[in-house]
């Protein structure tokens, strides 16, 4: 399997992981955050609630104390006997009786309310009437604010403070400095306040009012100065800010909370601070209603967060396990998804490698089984078509190999990639000598250019039909052939090779040659006969001509117009005979060419000057010039013929004859000369015969003009041909080499 994301199994893993993991992580995170958030809020709420409850409990505690003291002060016996204590003299029985009753009442009160340690009775002027302790009060309570409040009718609690008097603590140890407080209540008779009852209250049991579950909680009651006033512990009467850690950032929390609680009634930490023991705590401070006290609840941050931490661990574990499970399940599913596909892939790979003995997958997902079966069917049909192709290929091969004609295949660069037996045989090579060689190795030097042209044509058009070419055998001998090529393309349609059919034309060529030879032989017999006749005609003709001229000159003055016309007719007849005889002789006589460097323009200009040009015809000589090696006299003959033909073609009508020179024809090696008229053109059925000797359409023609021209040009190693269109006229094209090579002598 390839380790990149483009593979199916990777994609399926990623998809499944994405589908599974992302929701799991998102849900898990949301769950986690939400749960921890709510738990944390709950914790703070609990702490706040505990603090609030603590504050309320202490308020209740204090309120209970006040109610109790008030109830003692409101006792009818106490009221009446307080009045008696004021009324009767000390030492009197009435006083004693009253005091005795007060002793009883206060004793009952002290026993009922064990948190009351001492009761003191004042009259409303501040005189002590009674006290339950052995020793007298050490404080003048009448100077204290609570008594002042009580004198106005309110049961009031004083501050919790270290006792000046030696009193017992909860362990019955006596000392000063034991936390104590006084609650005073008016002793109100029917006519008003008779006295003040002051109760020394043991505030130690304040903790009974504080939440019972003290596990991990530290709770303090502080007064408005930050002094710890409860519950009793080693921190009592210390200022909670005294031993604060120096860590300003943390310690400020408690102070700021305190300030905040003073103004708002309650405040709690968000981050915690370090308490006096250096322990990190969370805290909530609540003002205790109806007092200037504050309830401080501190809880160890670690203890407080223990459950949350545990929950965090559980949640993280659960989410992690879920994620791992999802990953595992995803991988499992991805594997089960990709496994059959992998099998299929393997199957396909094997098929690609050529394995045809395919075992289909029979178990698993229906799609996979179907796919596998389809694959099998496909493979079967593949085998079938492979066989067909094979036999077709064999057939084709046989056809190719055993064909009587030569077949060869060349690639686009011209190198042999295949050939058949006929090819090998005809050329006298073994096949392996041929394959890989350039096709030009089998072409004689003289025809390589032609071959290149043909190859170029094939490359451009993809198709070549019946091109004549010469092939060279291994032994160096050559033979003519006709070449046709078609293209072999690859799947994309690019031409990659040429399938070439080459037909050996030796027999045909030889036959043609024989015919030609026979014809030439015949022509030569005719020619010789004609030459002899012509030659024989020339002398009597000259005699006739000369005699006729003498007669004409002689009888010049004696002849009338009719006679003159007869004379002219005679002269024209003599001219025509002479001309025809010259033509024949020109055609037949083939004196060697006198090759010199000549200006084509000059030759053409000379030619034009020699010809009588009818007025209605315009001759346009070439504007450019080129100098080539040639026989100027012979070329003049050619141009005379062509221009005369053109003028005659115009048939006394207005027209143009244009002569052009293209000195850079075929890459500059050749010169193209064209003679163009805008006459009626030559019909198609005639144009093929135009260069045949003795073919003429005119009464006066010998039919040897154009064949002579062609002969002259070919002797210059040039070519001459004609194109014509009945609408645009006729163009004769002459191609001449620029450089003199070996001029082939005409065989005719």
């Amino acid at each position, binding site marked *: 399997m390839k380790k990149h994301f483009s593979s199916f199994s*990777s994609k399926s*893993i990623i998809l499944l*992981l994405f589908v599974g*993991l992302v929701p*799991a*992580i998102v849900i*898990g*995170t949301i769950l*986690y*955050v939400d749960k*921890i*958030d709510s738990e944390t809020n709950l914790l703070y709420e609990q702490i706040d609630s505990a603090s609030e409850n603590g504050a309320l409990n202490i308020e209740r505690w204090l309120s209970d104390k006040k109610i109790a003291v008030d109830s003692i002060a409101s006792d009818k016996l106490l009221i009446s006997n307080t009045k008696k204590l004021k009324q009767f003299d*000390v*030492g*009197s029985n009435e*006083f*004693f009786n009253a*005091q*005795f009753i*007060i*002793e*009883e009442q206060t*004793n009952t009160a002290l*026993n009922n309310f064990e948190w009351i340690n001492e009761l003191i009775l004042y009259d409303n002027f501040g005189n002590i009437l009674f006290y*339950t302790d*052995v*020793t*007298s009060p050490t404080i003048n309570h009448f100077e204290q604010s609570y008594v002042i409040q009580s004198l106005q009718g309110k049961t009031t609690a004083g501050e919790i403070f*270290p*006792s000046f*008097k*030696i009193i017992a603590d909860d362990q019955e140890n*006596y000392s*000063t*400095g034991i936390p104590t407080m006084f609650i005073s209540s008016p002793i109100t008779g029917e006519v008003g306040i008779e006295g003040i009852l002051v109760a020394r209250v043991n505030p130690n049991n304040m903790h009974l009012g504080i939440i019972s579950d003290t596990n991990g909680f530290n709770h303090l009651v502080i*007064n408005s*100065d*930050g*002094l710890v006033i409860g519950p009793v512990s080693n921190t009592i*009467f210390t*200022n909670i*800010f005294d031993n604060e850690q120096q860590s300003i*950032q*943390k310690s*400020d*929390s408690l*102070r*700021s909370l*305190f*300030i905040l609680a003073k103004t708002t009634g309650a405040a709690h930490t*968000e*981050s915690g601070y370090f308490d006096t023991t250096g322990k990190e705590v969370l805290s909530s401070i609540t003002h205790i209603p109806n007092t200037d006290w504050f309830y401080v609840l501190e809880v160890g941050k670690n203890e407080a967060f223990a459950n949350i931490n545990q929950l965090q661990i559980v949640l*993280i574990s659960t*989410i*992690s396990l879920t*994620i791992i499970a999802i*990953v*595992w399940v995803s*991988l499992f599913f991805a*594997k089960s998804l990709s496994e059959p596909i992998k099998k299929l892939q393997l199957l396909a790979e094997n098929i690609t490698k050529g394995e045809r003995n395919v075992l289909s997958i029979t178990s698993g997902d229906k799609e996979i089984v179907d796919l596998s079966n389809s694959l099998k069917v496909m493979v079967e049909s593949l085998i079938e078509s492979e066989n067909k192709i094979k036999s077709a290929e064999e057939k084709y091969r046989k056809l190719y190999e055993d064909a009587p004609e030569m077949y060869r295949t060349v690639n686009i660069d011209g190198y042999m990639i295949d050939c058949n037996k006929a090819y090998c045989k005809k050329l006298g090579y073994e096949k392996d000598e041929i394959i890989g060689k350039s096709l030009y190795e089998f072409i004689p030097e003289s025809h390589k250019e032609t071959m290149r042209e043909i190859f170029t044509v094939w490359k451009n058009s993809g198709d070549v039909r019946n091109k004549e070419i010469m092939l060279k055998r291994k032994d160096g001998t050559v033979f003519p052939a006709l070449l046709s090529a078609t293209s072999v393309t690859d799947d994309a349609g690019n031409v990659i090779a040429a399938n070439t059919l080459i037909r050996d034309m030796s027999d045909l060529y030889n036959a043609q040659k024989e015919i030609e030879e026979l014809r030439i032989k015949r022509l030569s017999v005719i020619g010789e006969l004609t030459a002899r006749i012509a030659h024989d005609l020339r002398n009597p003709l000259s005699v006739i001509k000369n005699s006729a001229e003498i007669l004409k000159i002689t009888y010049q003055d004696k002849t009338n117009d009719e006679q003159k016309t007869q004379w002219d007719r005679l002269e024209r007849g003599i001219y025509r005979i002479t001309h025809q005889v010259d033509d024949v002789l020109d055609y037949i006589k083939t004196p060697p060419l006198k090759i010199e460097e000549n200006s084509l323009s000059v030759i053409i200009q000379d030619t034009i000057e020699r010809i009588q040009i009818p007025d209605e015809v315009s001759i346009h000589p070439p504007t450019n010039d080129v100098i080539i090696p040639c026989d100027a006299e012979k070329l003049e003959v050619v141009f005379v013929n062509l221009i005369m033909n053109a003028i005659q073609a115009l048939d006394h009508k207005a027209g143009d004859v244009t002569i052009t020179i293209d000195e850079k024809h075929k890459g500059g090696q050749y010169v193209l000369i064209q003679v163009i008229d805008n006459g009626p053109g030559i019909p198609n059925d005639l144009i093929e015969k135009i260069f045949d000797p003795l073919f003429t359409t005119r009464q006066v023609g010998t039919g040897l003009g154009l064949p002579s021209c062609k002969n002259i040009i070919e002797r210059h190693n040039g070519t001459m041909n004609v194109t014509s269109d009945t609408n645009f006229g006729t163009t004769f094209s002459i191609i001449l080499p620029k450089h003199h090579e070996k001029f082939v002598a005409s065989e005719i």
Partner: protein
Amino acid sequence: MDNRYVTLSVLFGISIIIGTFFIFQLQFDDQISSDVELAEVNFPGFSIDEQNPIKVGILHSLTGTMAISEHPVMESTVLAIDEINQQGGLLGRKILPIIVDGESNLETFEKQAEYLIEEEKVSAVFGGWTSASRKTMLPIFEKYDHALFYPVQYEGLESSKNIVYTGAAPNQQVIPGIEWAFENLGTKFFLVGSDYVFPRSANEIIKEKIEELGGSVVGEEYRILGDSNFHSIVQKIKKSDADVILNTINGDSNVWFFKALREHGISSKMIPTISFSISESEMGFLGTYRVSGDYASWNYFQSLTLPENENFVQNFKAKYGSDRVTSDPMEAGYTGVYLFAKAVEKAKSDDPKKYLQEIRGITLSAPSGIVGVDPDNQHLVKVVRIGQIQPDGQFTIIFSSEEPIRPIPYPDYKTQDQWHGFLDDLYFGWDRQWANPSLSGSDLV
């Protein structure tokens, strides 16, 4: 399968979770800066003048026939002093107890009282048990205008301004006892007692009371203090057809009396005894099996369920041992110290002349209940109770006056002068002593 993708995915997931976790942790940081005025707190100074204690004398018989009764009283007195000292003493001074032995001898009591007043310059003397010893010491206290806190029930017929009587007056022990016995046990009473001033005086009151109630006295016998021969008396009791024995025997003679009583087959069910001088303190010495089922009349029993008593019993046991018991005279001795303390505090002086002015009318929540010093006679107002002796030596309270009873030192059967005449007869009849000196009275109270 590529394990890389597994690991990466898991790590990715976990890192997200850990990330959120840390983001959460970071939320808790929020600081406000402010200043709070710090309050300075000074602890109040309280110093006790150790160099100048308030000396008090404790004068009880720590040896001799009365030692078994008086020694525990000395102890409870010391306990009270300790308690007050623990709470800061009086007037900023500690109370220093000077403990001396009365040796169950009247002369010794007289000498020791004078010694305490003159030599030790004590502010008060807590002591005495027998009326004989009190009456012997009384002239000394009156002479020096000093203060004696006397902790035992007695016959009354006395009211010195120099004595604070913290035990019961006759109407607070004897008379309620008779009334209860008459109603609950029978009408025929046999009186037996030690031959000294208290039994004689008490029985004089008892007889008046029985007569008043319409009952009969079927016998009256005395033995000198410390006597051990009670067989003849017991035989008389057997013959007397008595319903109730009223016992005013003091000291270790009680052992012999009850031994003889049981030896003669008189069980507490047959003829119950009401004792006026037997308390929890004597039980161990007497043998509880001898007296179980009998009765005693007191103001205090250890079994009282008052908080003050529970505190007292607890403190006593804490100081002297958990097997120890408390009794009426012990409670009276203990209470006397507190009354003294309150008076000193009230008078702001430890001078008896001054604090005795203040002590009248003082009330106190004592172990026996609310008590108060009667401003008329310096006796305590207190509750009367009758208890039945249980096999464990404790008393079950079967009767209580509930309301405190004001002391009447001179029962109104006679005038004060007549009572003084009666006492004079005894005193002179015993050769100017407060006990029958017929035998070797030298070591008897």
